[in-house]
């Protein structure tokens, strides 16, 4: 019953929808620190826009967007952004993730927290997007031995 043919209508619809979902995801990430939203929600939306293309276009089309092997490094980069931001605050004498102590933002404490959270959100968003795509990729690939 399973038919392996591409449907141009579904692909076109997904291609039409996907950029707007991605744009909304970016909006949610970058406005997450002073309105409802944030890294996880935005990252999920980014992943949704990528997975939409993967579901409708199949492997050939999705390979043009984000390669399968690129997800692990992206997730690692996302976590490293989070980790280094926290560690930078620790290195200058504050607690882990204490944004007021961040060395590279010389501003009032309130604004330092504002920008510090934004950096964290970007890292989280990247990691969440990459990991959700990675889960999907690994699940369709299945086990490589029986």
């Amino acid at each position, binding site marked *: 019953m399973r038919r392996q043919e591409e449907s141009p209508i579904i692909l076109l619809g997904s291609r039409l929808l996907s950029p707007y979902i991605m744009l909304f995801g970016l909006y949610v990430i970058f406005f997450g620190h*002073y*309105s*409802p939203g944030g890294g*996880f*929600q935005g990252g999920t939306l980014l992943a949704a826009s990528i997975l939409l293309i993967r579901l409708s276009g199949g492997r050939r089309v999705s390979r043009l967007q984000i390669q399968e092997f690129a997800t692990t490094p992206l997730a690692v980069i996302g976590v490293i952004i989070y980790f280094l931001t926290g560690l930078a605050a620790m290195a200058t004498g504050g607690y882990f993730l204490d944004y007021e102590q961040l060395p590279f933002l010389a501003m009032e404490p309130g604004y330092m927290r504002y920008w510090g959270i934004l950096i964290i959100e970007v890292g989280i968003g990247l990691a969440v997007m990459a990991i959700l795509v990675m*889960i999907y990729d*690994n*699940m369709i690939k*299945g*086990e490589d031995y*029986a």
Partner: protein
Amino acid sequence: MLDFFLGHYAYWFVIILMCVGLYGILFKKNLVKKTIGLAIFQVSVVLYFVSIASKWDATVPVRDSNISVEQVANYLNPLPHTLMLTAIVVGVATLGVAFTLLMAIYNRYGTLDEQELLEEIQ
């Protein structure tokens, strides 16, 4: 008595949902249905947390220039929502692991029926 039932209606929904989830976990033979029951069970606790944070005539906990910060009654308690965001993340990860395991089981045994699997393993 009626007030007790109507006044806590959100909690009754939570209890019903929790019972549905527990029924799925305990009595369904198909492992996918068990996983769905597990998801329903988790969602019921999420709904419980969200319902304890509800407040009439209150706004989102982002500072509004029309309402002063001292008027605590006008802002929602954001903590349960934040906690549940994390719990939802945990739920997503659990479902991901569960379905990956199910695919591994199906690849190895060709069935997802609990009884058949138990017989096969013995």
